[in-house]
């Protein structure tokens, strides 16, 4: 039997290869369940999960809720606008009050980097990070990798290019850490104003910075386009969305430089015609909707294993 070495899923930086493999391999089993007529298993019966979403979310929140329901967990949802936080309650007090209701597991999304870690340090509940600031989004990365492994089998020796707003992307960071751990090569590509400034730190982890998008996709096995926040233009980080699309957008012309079977991915939601053209997002190489489906299986695996579940060896 294999158990996770980590108690919480706060991020993927520093998470060992064995834990990553355990979640990904367990997710395969849950993925099969999702194709059955009855998609529900009793694995987390009696376990209570609260989804603490301090930031807007559609697909991640629904994906976690579905994962919890498929595992037969009792789940409750929390949104900050309808909570006591809006009346001035501190984050810690909110947590303590929720915890007093005998919660086993907390799924949290927050705009503040480190909030999941803060909660983990002050709570007995198991914490799952559903996105904190621009820091990490571990389950998104795991579902990205799961989707890639469906095609490649293993990420060892594969090249994954991440294009776009890397500096402010928790998806990019989680993917960089996990993909490197699993032996893949990661490339970052984007405008200099949207790339991490201290590149040495990432380069030490094996991440390569490739300024030109054509070069960046050349030879890549998978390309992940990141959502471009329109506020970036207002913040003077970009001249126009038009220039971004012309120089960094995933267009058929750009992808003509890539391998024939390159996987096209996107964490969603998509700005069509900005970071990715519709013909690419909806094209035969796109696995964007597979990512969404796989997200439920990966989150089921993470919740199951963190709750003390194990995989039979």
């Amino acid at each position, binding site marked *: 039997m294999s158990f996770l070495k980590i108690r919480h899923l706060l991020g993927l930086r520093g998470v060992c290869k064995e834990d990553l493999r355990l979640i990904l391999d367990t997710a395969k089993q849950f993925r099969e369940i999702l194709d059955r007529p009855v998609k529900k298993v009793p694995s987390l019966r009696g376990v209570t999960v609260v989804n603490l979403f301090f930031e807007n979310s559609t697909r991640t929140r629904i994906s976690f809720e579905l994962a919890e329901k498929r595992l037969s967990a009792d789940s409750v949802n929390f949104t900050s606008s309808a909570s006591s936080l809006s009346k001035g309650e501190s984050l810690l007090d909110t947590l303590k009050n929720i915890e007093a209701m005998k919660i086993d597991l907390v799924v949290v999304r927050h705009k503040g980097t480190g909030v999941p870690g803060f909660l983990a340090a002050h709570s007995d509940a198991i914490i799952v990070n559903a996105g904190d600031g621009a820091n990490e989004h571990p389950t998104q990365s795991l579902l990205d990798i799961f989707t890639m492994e469906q095609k490649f089998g293993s990420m060892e020796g594969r090249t994954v290019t991440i294009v776009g707003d890397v500096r402010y992307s928790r998806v990019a960071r989680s993917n960089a850490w996990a993909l490197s751990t699993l032996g893949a090569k990661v490339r970052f590509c984007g405008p200099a104003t949207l790339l991490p400034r201290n590149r040495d730190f990432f380069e030490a982890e094996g991440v390569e910075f490739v300024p030109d998008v054509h070069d960046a996709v050349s030879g890549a096995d998978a390309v992940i386009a990141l959502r471009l926040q329109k506020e970036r233009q207002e913040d003077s980080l*970009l*001249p126009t969305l038009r220039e971004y699309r012309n120089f960094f957008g995933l267009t058929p012309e750009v992808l003509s430089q890539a391998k024939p079977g390159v996987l096209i991915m996107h964490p969603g939601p998509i700005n069509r015609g900005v970071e990715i053209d519709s013909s690419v997002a909806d094209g035969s190489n796109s696995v964007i909707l597979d990512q969404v489906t796989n997200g439920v299986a990966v989150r089921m695996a993470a919740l199951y294993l963190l709750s003390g579940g194990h995989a039979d060896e």
Partner: protein
Amino acid sequence: MNNYCFAGARAYVGSRFQEPADFWVQKGKWVKGPLPDAHRVEAQGCWILPGLSALLVDFQEPIRDDVYTLHDGFEAMHRGGFYSALYESAANPLDDIQKLKAIRDACGKSGLEFHFLGALSVDHAGKSLSEMLELASGGVVGFGDGDRFPTSLRFIRLALEYAGMTGLRCFFQPLETSLMGKGCVHEGHYADAFGIRGIPSQAETIAVHQILELAGWLKVPVHLKQITCRESLSLLRLARDRGIDVTCDVSVNHLLFDDSSLEALDTNMHLRPPLRTAEDRTALWNALSDGTIQAISCAHVPVLPQDKETHFEDAQPGAVSLEIALAALLPEARQRLCGGEEALLTLLVDGPSRVLGLPPRTLAEDQNIPFLLYDPRVERKVQIQDFCGQVHNSPLLGAKIQGKVLGDFFDGSWRPTAQ
């Protein structure tokens, strides 16, 4: 007749004058003579020079064609012996590809060689980045915001980061806006004597320091326009010692004048940046001699007579200089510049190329390079008629200068300058 012999001229080749000799021209190209049917032009004591290169000109069309037109600018270049120019439009910031195409097409009709600076920010306002990647793909050779220094250091940082993707140089006029305030002369003796609001040297040095720190940090090449004071030169030398890729220029007027020239309160002396002290002027010449400064800028800023015919503080800053730059600088260069007139010509022929990393320009046999016949002995007084268009805002009006373009070979034809 397409063949010429300029008898006894001294050709300036590769930064050196050759001994006086007959200079043979066939169909606009320098060739080995003799040519039997050549038209003979007596040119003893005259120079054959490659076309000069002007750093940072703005002919204001189309936005201010009430002041000056492209045609005026082309004619001014022709009169001054300039055949290439780095164009940066303050009136009509080149912040998108359509504006670039329009001005490039218009300038292309002149047959002169133009390079263009794209805008760092939309409208030179220092708030939104311009489409620098597209401008770079359209052929700009660098970026700048005219004479406006961005007020936000964060914006300068972002602009440098973004421009850094292109590998092109970013140009700044280092004048810190809040310290400059409404000043219009150097904050020194003469500002106090006349009670005119001054601009301290620190308005420049602080901006220089800011740019150099950011350029060194972000590893983006920068150019500082119209350096005026010795403290800035010290900062530049230190920066180069640190490996920062920085070039700079000094304007014709800051080499010719200092703030003692303000005595008469001639509004043509109202310049931005302002004229500094005599010690600063000496330091600028020395910096040209030792290579601290790479180029001389014409800083050709046309101002309508009515905008100069007012009191000093109210006058619009700027001066024109293309038509007379070489003749005005020659006597001073002989006295103050190490290498004298040859060094001056190198700066005026190759300075912009050095800044932009372009190949050096030199006369060569069988090459189709525009060149001019220049008589350095002609003494003349600067007159209103020397200037093109409806402007004549030169602090040199009435001054004696030495030298004149007698004509040029351009597009394969000999064009004598109108007397």
